[in-house]
């Protein structure tokens, strides 16, 4: 879950930096614990492992998790439903594409920072194709070009991972949901790279309207983010563990791409 909200993030950044500097000292300990499987398989081909999370704050995290759960159910879901009702699917899709296209610097810079220059080049092509042939990003024309259809999106969390920084403890952020110390720091980096947040750096009257693209971005992400959350949560035996496991597995796969 990463609908960015600037006030919340401003509060979180200093906290995250403190946490990261603390975890830098304990990092070696957690990473050895995470890499050592605690169990053996149930048969010869069983290579699954249950140790995947460092979660020293589990009590607090579970409390935040159930708080978020209530918030999603009673506040965000009605807003999301409202947005889905007043906006037809093709329009929502177009809006998603535009915001996704604008986010180009996040993917471009992070591809570069990870030394994936070929991928950075593909991001430039994608941005060009979608902006020009896709009417400002409204239509994702790059999906029609096989070499550009499945370019994995890079973010700052993955960049930090590539640089050898471990997850650090798992944290469930208020409103934003599952994260780790590393991803929280990454979130702040991506916030600065996303042009929709640049309005606040402007001096003119534009600053007064800088909240509009941000609010729109938060709204348009709700249906998909809530769907992702529901998918990880539904049919779970323990929703907290299900979401945590999905979060770690998904971010591991994203880093490996």
């Amino acid at each position, binding site marked *: 879950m990463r609908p960015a909200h600037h006030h919340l993030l401003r509060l979180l950044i200093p906290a995250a930096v403190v946490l990261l500097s603390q975890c830098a000292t304990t990092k070696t300990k957690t990473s050895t614990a995470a890499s050592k499987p605690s*169990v*053996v*398989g*149930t*048969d010869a*081909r*069983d290579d*699954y*492992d*249950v140790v*995947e999370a460092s979660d020293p704050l589990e009590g607090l995290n579970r409390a935040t998790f159930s708080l978020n759960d209530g918030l999603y159910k009673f506040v965000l879901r009605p807003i999301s439903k409202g947005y889905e009702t007043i906006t037809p699917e093709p329009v929502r*899709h177009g809006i998603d594409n535009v915001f996704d296209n604008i986010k180009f610097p996040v993917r471009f810079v992070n591809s570069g920072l990870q030394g994936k220059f070929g991928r950075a080049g593909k991001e430039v092509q994608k941005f060009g194709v979608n902006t020009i042939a896709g009417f400002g990003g409204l239509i994702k024309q790059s*999906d029609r070009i096989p070499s550009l*259809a*499945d370019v994995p999106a890079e973010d700052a969390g993955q960049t930090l991972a590539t640089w050898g920084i471990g997850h650090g403890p798992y944290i469930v952020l208020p409103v934003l949901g599952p994260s780790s110390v590393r991803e929280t720091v990454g979130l702040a980096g991506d916030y600065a790279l996303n042009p929709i947040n640049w309005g606040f750096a402007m001096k003119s009257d534009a600053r007064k309207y800088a909240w509009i693209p941000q609010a729109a971005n938060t709204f348009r992400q709700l249906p*998909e983010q809530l769907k992702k959350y529901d*998918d*990880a949560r*539904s*049919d*779970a*035996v*323990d929703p907290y*563990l*299900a979401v*945590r*496991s*999905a979060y770690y*597995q*998904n*971010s*591991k*796969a*994203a880093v*490996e791409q």
Partner: protein
Amino acid sequence: MNRRPLLALILLLPMLVRQASASALEAQQRLHGAVDEVLAVADRVADRRALADKLRPVLQRHVSFETMTRRAIGPGWRQFTSDQQRKATQLFTTLVIRTYSNKFTPGERPVITYKTAVAHAAGRVDVPTTLVYKGSHYSVTYRMEQEGGWRIADVVIEGVSMIANYRSQLDAQFKKAGAPAVISSLEQSVARPQ
């Protein structure tokens, strides 16, 4: 010195590779057939609840639910009595079929592209695919295993393995209070209204 085994290996290698790719192809074809069968059923049935019932026999032919349950429970499985194992398998099967059926939206047809299958070990082939559903791209990898024919043993969506996900939950239940806790937690999940 003793170079004969090495030599034999080098000579046999092309054959082994060919065999591996042959099994990869076989597994992929089996998956292809299974997916087509499922989609044909999903196309016919509009009601979600009915879909789970209609998909059950199809999935039971192509999915190895026994293996899935054993691995989802993890090492604790060995301490289950055979009655408990049977009960757990039955519940987990229902849960998986329901989870899977709920992913379909009536009238929406996914477009699936199969990529090159990878033979990871003897009797195991991973088939990566990309799925375009309702305008979104997903990466979905099917783990196929040889159990008297190729069968699906896990589905990995966007890097998230269904079995690993359940193991993190069920193993915690087992460590808390053993096999009865695992079974009652599965019972609760199955009984939860949709």
